[in-house]
């Protein structure tokens, strides 16, 4: 442990510096296109956090990113890189749409549970094939999950212009029944007398997402399965030697990952759109990668990073409204975060480690034992 920096620096300082670097580069981009970065930041904060309406959108996006971030994080623990979140969300949405369209459900609580089960099952199923191919055939899971994103998009296109299409021009399903409508935060907070904007889409799914964060934390650090997943992720040969079945760990971690990604659909399909539309995931599956990297694959970190990206997403929408800055600026920030926290991690870590080693106090050097005292005596 002598040549490493303290755990808190690794968990907090490295992501923080990455974030600051990403922010600086984003500010340069904004300045380069002739806008004022400080003004933009002010507008983002005002738009995303300045009202319950803004918060309602921020939390809605954050809910999406919690699911996809957790999905990427659990796969990271097993050293699997699941880029397929986007496709798993789309297919999860298909599951939600099928059950809400064809099964008359009496109350939103029943509908929520049913939709959640379907979303998780469909998302997990979509992750199962790449997982199986990785475990049994050694096909690289990154490539197969990317391919499955495109196959999912084609599947959804087909379903929405074909069997599930509502009458009319738009490629979308009919609206779900009113009884399946999820209470928004406005409905929830009005019960306890807090006035919350009724226009924002944040809904009870937020609580499901927070529960998922806690549940996943317990799974990773408080169960035997979580231990096996972490052991497999840190050293496959060691895990194999300890009697852990690699196929089982790859399958289970990817099924959980796909299921979590699929569950995002209850937020955007059942909660917000209340029907299935084309490109329903809107890139949230990919943002999960940035969220998981930023959150260091820890569920609490994912929670915080999801809030941050929810803020960025809503703030970015405000920028597009009020300044001549396209919404795609968020994609740039997302890319920079992935670049700095994921790929250029060592660029930040190496100098930081050096600084910590330089300032390390002397007593950390191993205590002189008998031999060295005799050497001192000889001097």
């Amino acid at each position, binding site marked *: 442990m002598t040549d490493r920096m303290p755990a808190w620096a690794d968990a907090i300082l490295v992501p923080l510096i990455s974030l600051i670097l990403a922010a600086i580069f984003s500010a340069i981009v904004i300045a380069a296109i002739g806008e004022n970065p400080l003004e933009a930041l002010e507008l983002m904060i005002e738009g995303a956090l300045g009202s319950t309406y803004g918060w309602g959108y921020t939390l809605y996006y954050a809910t999406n990113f919690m699911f996809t971030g957790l999905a990427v994080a659990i796969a990271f623990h097993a050293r699997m890189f699941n880029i397929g979140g986007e496709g798993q969300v789309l297919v999860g949405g298909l599951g939600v749409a099928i059950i809400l369209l064809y099964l008359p459900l009496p109350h939103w609580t029943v509908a929520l549970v049913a939709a959640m089960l379907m979303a998780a099952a469909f998302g997990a199923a979509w992750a199962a094939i790449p997982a199986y191919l990785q475990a049994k055939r050694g096909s*690289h899971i990154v490539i197969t999950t990317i391919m499955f994103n495109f196959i999912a998009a*084609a599947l959804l296109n087909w379903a929405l212009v074909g069997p599930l299409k509502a009458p009319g021009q738009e490629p979308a399903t009919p609206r779900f029944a009113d009884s399946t409508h999820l209470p928004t935060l406005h409905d929830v907070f009005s019960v306890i007398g807090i006035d919350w904007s009724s226009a924002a889409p944040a809904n009870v799914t937020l609580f499901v997402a927070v529960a998922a964060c806690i549940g996943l934390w317990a799974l990773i650090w408080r169960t035997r399965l979580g231990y096996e997943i972490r052991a497999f992720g840190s050293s496959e040969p060691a895990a194999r030697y300890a009697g852990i079945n690699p196929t089982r760990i790859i399958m289970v971690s990817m099924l959980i990952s796909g299921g979590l990604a699929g569950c995002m659909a209850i937020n955007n399909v059942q909660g917000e759109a209340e029907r299935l539309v084309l490109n329903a995931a809107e890139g949230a599956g990919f943002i999960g990668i940035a969220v998981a990297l930023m959150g260091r694959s820890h569920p609490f970190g994912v929670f915080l990073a999801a809030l941050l990206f929810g803020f960025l997403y809503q703030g970015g929408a405000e920028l597009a409204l009020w300044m*001549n800055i396209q919404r795609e600026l968020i994609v740039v920030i997302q890319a920079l975060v*992935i670049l700095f926290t994921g790929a250029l991690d060592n660029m930040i870590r190496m100098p930081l480690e050096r600084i910590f080693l330089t300032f390390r106090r002397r007593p950390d050097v191993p205590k002189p034992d008998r031999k060295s005292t005799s050497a001192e005596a000889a001097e």
Partner: protein
Amino acid sequence: MDFLTTLQVLDSSLRQATPLLIACLAGLFSERAGIFDIGLEGKMLVAAFLSAAVAAVTGSVWLGLLAGIGASLVFSAIHGLASITFRGNQLISGVALNFLAAGLTVVIAQSWFAQGGRTPQLMAGGRFEPIILPGALTSSSDIAQAGPLMQLYSELISGHGLPVYVALALVPLTWWALFRTRFGLRLRAVGEAPEAVDTAGISVVGLRFAAVVIAGVLCGIAGAYLATGLQAGFTKDMTAGRGYIALAALIFAKWRPWYALGACLLFGFLQAVAIRFQNIDLGVVEVPVQVMDALPYILTVVILAGFVGRAIPPRAGGEPYVKER
């Protein structure tokens, strides 16, 4: 379907296959040297944008091409820095570059041209003009009258932009460079056993950077052709997954140049068919156009699964090289 229609579909296949083929060869150089390149898509996209932007402003397709290659090289440099110098995760770096391209191109395009994230339509000098080979017919009515051989020559072989012919020439060139030169031998070795290359006193870092630079130049050409040859200007997300299809073709081709030509022509053909026909009626069942869209990806998964011949990537692919101390 008559002969001329078949020719027209094949003609369109060749055009669609060109950016795939150049990007696929870019990936071939990079991955043979042990650097996974998921960022083909992003490099093509920045190249497409900057080439279209410069060609629109200057009116010269050549300056556009240079600018496109330059943009792609900057992205290559970031990828090299992350995956070679700082020994980061090559997959994550590629993913980041794809998003960086998707975001930056739209933000900058809007700021420069204020046309909703696209560049202006390119005029004559700003595009790669079709090259009419000697003796080839040009008007479609003449071609319809001509004999089958003349039709084949005029419709399929003649009348493409320069990058199409360049792409075809690149295949034997790549094969020769990789399998018949000292540089190629070392490049392949660095993707299989970098420690052996290092032991022989050859720079692993240098070779890998060389491969990444070559990939950057090729992606630049591929992206420039997309915006200044296949289409007349840049539109948001115009690569539309072509970088990933090229990656799929690379796996399909098992990291070999001639196979890459075959794979890209096949995937180009699928795209051409999907553009020309919507749903295909096979008599018994009607194949929806979405199946055509998904087919390259499905085929790649099948190949990766190893049911139809096993695709084995370069052994040291994706792993940063750490010199023993």
